[in-house]
């Protein structure tokens, strides 16, 4: 094993990891917002709207992320012809749209875990459907699904490696460059893997702390 390349190339890995984090953060935040919207669509009283939401989720869950990234990479510039959309933005959009479907599924299970009585109590006090949903149901649902959302976050960090194929200069893309420049097959990948591991491990620790905090706020 030869890791002497690190002296010359460590900054490649750092800047790559930085982009990876940006991608994952955008994917989770934007994905959560879209995921809530998607969940509301899927709980609409209008059949067509429900159907659109369901089809979207089934499509995302049933096709490879790689294919989705290509579709958006090629499709988005067609939609916004004349605008120069950076690859990083395309990658972030693709990851967000993908995460939204999975997050929507998670939120749905979180909402279903909140007892029916909560909605009934809220409605019986004169709150409308929307107020009851946003004030009473969703805050409880989010607490329920925090562990699952954390896993989604970790998943997004790893998934972001796939957008290297459209030239987004995240960690995996940078690793490929290092491999080319140094003619080393294995070692740069090991370094990158360690980088991913550090990111995901740190995150899961932070999430563990947040979860414990939220739990204690239940009993005061």
């Amino acid at each position, binding site marked *: 094993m030869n890791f002497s390349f690190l002296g010359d190339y460590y900054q490649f890995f750092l800047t790559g990891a930085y982009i990876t984090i940006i991608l994952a953060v955008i994917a989770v935040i934007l994905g959560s917002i879209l995921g809530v919207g998607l969940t509301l669509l899927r709980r609409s009283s209008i059949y067509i709207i429900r159907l659109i939401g369901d089809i979207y989720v089934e499509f995302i869950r049933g096709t490879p992320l790689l294919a989705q990234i290509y579709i958006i990479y090629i499709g988005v510039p067609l939609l916004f012809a004349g605008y120069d959309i950076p690859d990083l933005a395309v990658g972030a959009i693709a990851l967000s749209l993908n995460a939204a479907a999975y997050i929507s599924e998670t939120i749905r299970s979180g909402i279903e875990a909140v007892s029916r*009585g909560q909605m009934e109590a809220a409605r019986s006090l004169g709150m409308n459907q929307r107020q009851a949903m946003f004030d009473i149901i969703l805050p409880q649902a989010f607490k329920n699904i925090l562990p699952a959302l954390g896993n989604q976050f970790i998943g997004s960090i790893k998934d972001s490696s796939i957008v290297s194929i459209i030239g987004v200069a995240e960690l995996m893309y940078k690793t490929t460059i290092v491999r080319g420049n140094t003619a080393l097959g294995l070692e740069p990948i090991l370094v990158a893997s360690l980088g991913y591991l550090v990111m995901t491990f740190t995150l899961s620790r932070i999430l563990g702390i947040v979860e414990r905090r939220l739990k204690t706020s239940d*009993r005061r």
Partner: protein
Amino acid sequence: MIDVKDLHKSYGKSEVLRGIDVSIHKGEVVVVIGPSGSGKSTFLRCLNLLEKPTNGDIYLDKQNITEKTINIDKVREKMGMVFQQFNLFPHKTVCQNICHAPMRVKGMRQQEAKELAVELLKKVGLLEKIDMYPSSLSGGQQQRIAIARALAMKPEVMLFDEPTSALDPEMVGEVLAVMKDLAKEGMTMVVVTHEMGFAKEVGDRILFIDQGKILEENSPKEFFEQPKHPRTIDFLSKVL
């Protein structure tokens, strides 16, 4: 105040309510009793449209609330409801539980809502719990908070759906005491319960429901001392 006309409710093929006609007058305490599965809870839940009647009309202050054009949220503001399982909001403190709907639905200012919460908590004897979360309260305390929460909307009528059925026996009394006070103040109440003592003492009128119909309707005295319908006699012989 509430007039129910030929109320029917079916779930698929099973008919739970099979034609209920009843009027509830202002200031009256109507106690609904009957065996489990008789439809008494469904009847109560139809009154504020938590269950949608399959057929029939419900009038609140002469307004038909089963019509499609009715804003159901406005109607529910006038009807407080207390549930068997309390259904307090676990992520909110006692104060927030009480203040939330008046602020959100009626646009009450925070200061005013807080004062209202203090006043209501005094009434149910739980002022010291104002900043607690529901999970740290006993069942009886939670139910009293739930009553205060419903009262915060200043309803014209209060619906109680087996308010003491999920409580440990020693906590039943404190909840019934709060309900008795309410009745004394002249609140219009419809109470579904298995507490025969409460029915006898506080009720102005008893409705006995079985198999989706009101089989007997009478004053507590008449009802308990001279039941007429065979089903009522049978039921009372089992529960008394």
